[in-house]
């Protein structure tokens, strides 16, 4: 005879704790959204307490894709750890590449050739467009529009083909090296990028025609999940989530790294901080990225693409360093403590999604379930980055 299954259908530690924490009055329903659920884009789990269609409480549960990236940083040598960075946030892998490489360079005082800096800017911005495109498609998919994601993928596919030329991979890039990049930009890459930019300039108005002006979409985004700037600051939200609330905080402008101070670009900000503002900010950011790429393509100097004096063994001197870059989701920070050996003593990764996610619990309170899904989507979360 088979024993009865030992698991309880009443739930695990998190759900029992959740129901203990707030035994609300009335007939409420505790619902698990995730870890396998169409709206969570990965293995995020959100426990919500529903009163009819209204969300009484929501609590995200993390850790389903925790891969110990920080610990891995301590046991691997600096070079060995590089490929990990493409896997923390698979949608904007190059920004993470940059954050880590930049931190080590800063600690070692490594010079990066000017051409390499331009290459980094171009590829990183292309990658940012990639990420925003996927977000755009997935967000409209969350709101029930099936078609836009395939239009977005149309463009994203071209971008990935382009980025494949120098990097050799399509998603989890490992392209930046200490003191430069691993391969020079080819003529094919440059022409294809120019072609893409021309094409993309006609595509963005089409996206706006198809989706942004749509009455139903506006009804689902406007005044939904309004995030005051003060609250965004309190949670440490960055990136488009913070900028949607009207704070013009962009690491590329506030603490310019690399050659970002050479370019003219605007920092789009929203007004009310609702989902529509975050949407608009991201759409505008794609245009700004195109602007940056155009300028970089025109200014890119000749020269080596990697510093020839980089030592074979990367052994930064004793000390600690913090280096931040602007990722598609916000401020990516790498805090590195070196004890002078070939491996870091401690590595701390600041994932922007982690802070952005925690805004959700407060924003979702009192909204309708469909709005909670809309808010969750508008935060543009990448779960592997949050769990690290």
């Amino acid at each position, binding site marked *: 005879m088979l024993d009865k299954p030992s698991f309880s259908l009443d739930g695990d530690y998190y759900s029992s704790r959740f129901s203990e924490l707030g035994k609300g009055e009335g007939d409420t*329903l505790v*619902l698990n959204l995730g870890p396998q*659920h*169409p*709206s969570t884009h990965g293995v995020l789990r959100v426990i919500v307490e*529903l009163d*009819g*269609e209204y969300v009484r409480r929501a609590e995200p549960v993390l850790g389903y894709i925790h891969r110990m990236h920080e610990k891995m940083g301590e046991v691997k040598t600096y070079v060995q750890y590089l490929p990990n960075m493409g896997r923390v946030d698979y949608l904007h892998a190059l920004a993470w590449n940059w954050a880590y490489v930049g931190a080590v360079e800063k600690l070692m005082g490594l010079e990066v050739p000017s051409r390499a800096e331009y290459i980094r800017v171009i590829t990183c911005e292309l990658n940012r467009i990639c990420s925003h495109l996927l977000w755009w498609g997935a967000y*409209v*998919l*969350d*709101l*029930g*529009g*099936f*078609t836009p994601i*395939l*239009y977005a993928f*149309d463009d994203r596919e071209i971008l990935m083909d382009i980025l494949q030329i120098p990097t050799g991979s399509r998603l989890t890039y490992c392209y930046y090296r200490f003191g430069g990049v691993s391969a020079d930009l080819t003529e094919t890459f440059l022409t294809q990028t120019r072609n893409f930019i021309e094409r993309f300039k006609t595509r963005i108005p089409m996206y706006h025609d*198809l*989706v942004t002006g*749509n009455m*139903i*979409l506006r*009804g*689902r985004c406007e005044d939904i999940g309004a995030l005051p700037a003060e609250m965004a600051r309190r949670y440490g939200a960055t990136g488009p989530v913070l900028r949607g609330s009207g704070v013009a905080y962009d690491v590329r402008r506030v603490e310019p790294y690399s050659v970002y101070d050479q370019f003219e670009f605007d920092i789009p900000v929203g007004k009310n901080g609702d989902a529509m503002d975050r949407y608009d900010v991201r759409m505008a950011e794609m245009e700004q990225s195109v602007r940056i790429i155009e300028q970089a393509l025109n200014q890119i100097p000749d020269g080596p693409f990697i510093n020839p004096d980089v030592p074979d063994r990367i052994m930064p001197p004793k000390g600690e360093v913090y280096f931040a870059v602007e990722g598609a989701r916000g401020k990516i920070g790498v805090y590195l403590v070196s004890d002078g050996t070939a491996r870091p003593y401690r590595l701390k990764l600041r994932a922007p999604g982690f802070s952005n996610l925690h805004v959700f619990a407060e924003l979702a309170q009192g909204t*309708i*379930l*469909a*709005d909670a*899904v809309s808010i969750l989507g508008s935060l543009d979360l990448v779960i592997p980055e949050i769990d690290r």
Partner: protein
Amino acid sequence: MTQILQFLMLPLVHLIVALIAILTFIALNGLILVYVERKVAGFIQRRPGPFEVGPHGLLQPLADALKLVGKQLVMPRGADRILFWVAPLLSFAPVAICLLPIPFGPYLLGLNVNLGLLLVLAFSGLNVLALCLAGWGSNNKYALLGAARAVAQSVAYEIPLLLSVLCVAFTCGSLSFVDITASQTRGLLSWNVFSQPLAFLIFFVSALAETNRAPFDLPEAESELTAGFHTEYSGMGFGLFFLAEYSYMIVVSAVASVLFLGGWSGPFFSGHWWMLGKIYALILIMMWFRWTYPRVRFDQLLNICWKWLIPLSLINLLGTALIINLVR
């Protein structure tokens, strides 16, 4: 020959033949619409759609149907055994009756009743009950939420649907589909859509909501409720819900074309080809909506109904009644 014809004209035999024909039509239509929907989605999304099974993927719906039939039927623990299995049958069964009184051609008609319109509205209302039972019987929270939405939505949208249908009944002075079609056979401009454009719009919007089609597909909103009321159904349990959805699309399109677009009458020639053409044109429009628009929110859905459609249809109805009185 005449004997066969006489035998066929016997009311009971006629009814049985008509029912068999309708069931065949529904099954075939299910296959066709699955293919068409996937192809339409493909073209709208700039991809080829199904292409592998058979020439241009023509056999894809057959393969899908085989897959559905071959799947194990799973019932979740704690589900209500009877309600769980009754629901898909109840969802599908009324469709056959709904199509009976609809004249597909001058002679292609299952059952000529003078209350045909009422019959269709009454039996199509049963679908709500099926969705409700499915959600309740599944012992699943998503399904329950989906069912609650389905009930609220269907009950709300039944009202503007009825009111807009009443306008047509007023102008034609009959509830029989045959009479309503007959009143629209005097050329293109005698179609009710030209005398009742607002009623047509309201009817079409309400019909979208009644059939749970996008942008009103809230009971199965997959980004919120995974699959809504049919989350727990596998194999043909899901298949029947699916078939019922497509069949109700046929029903509402058929009713819309009879009430507003002249039924089988048309320019150049009249007959069932016109009727089928109109039905499938309306279905194509529904598919076009589905693959273009995002989904509305639940309260917005009800707002559209209570704040816009019902007042508008009431005004329209009163206006129609007034004009009819004045003309007479």
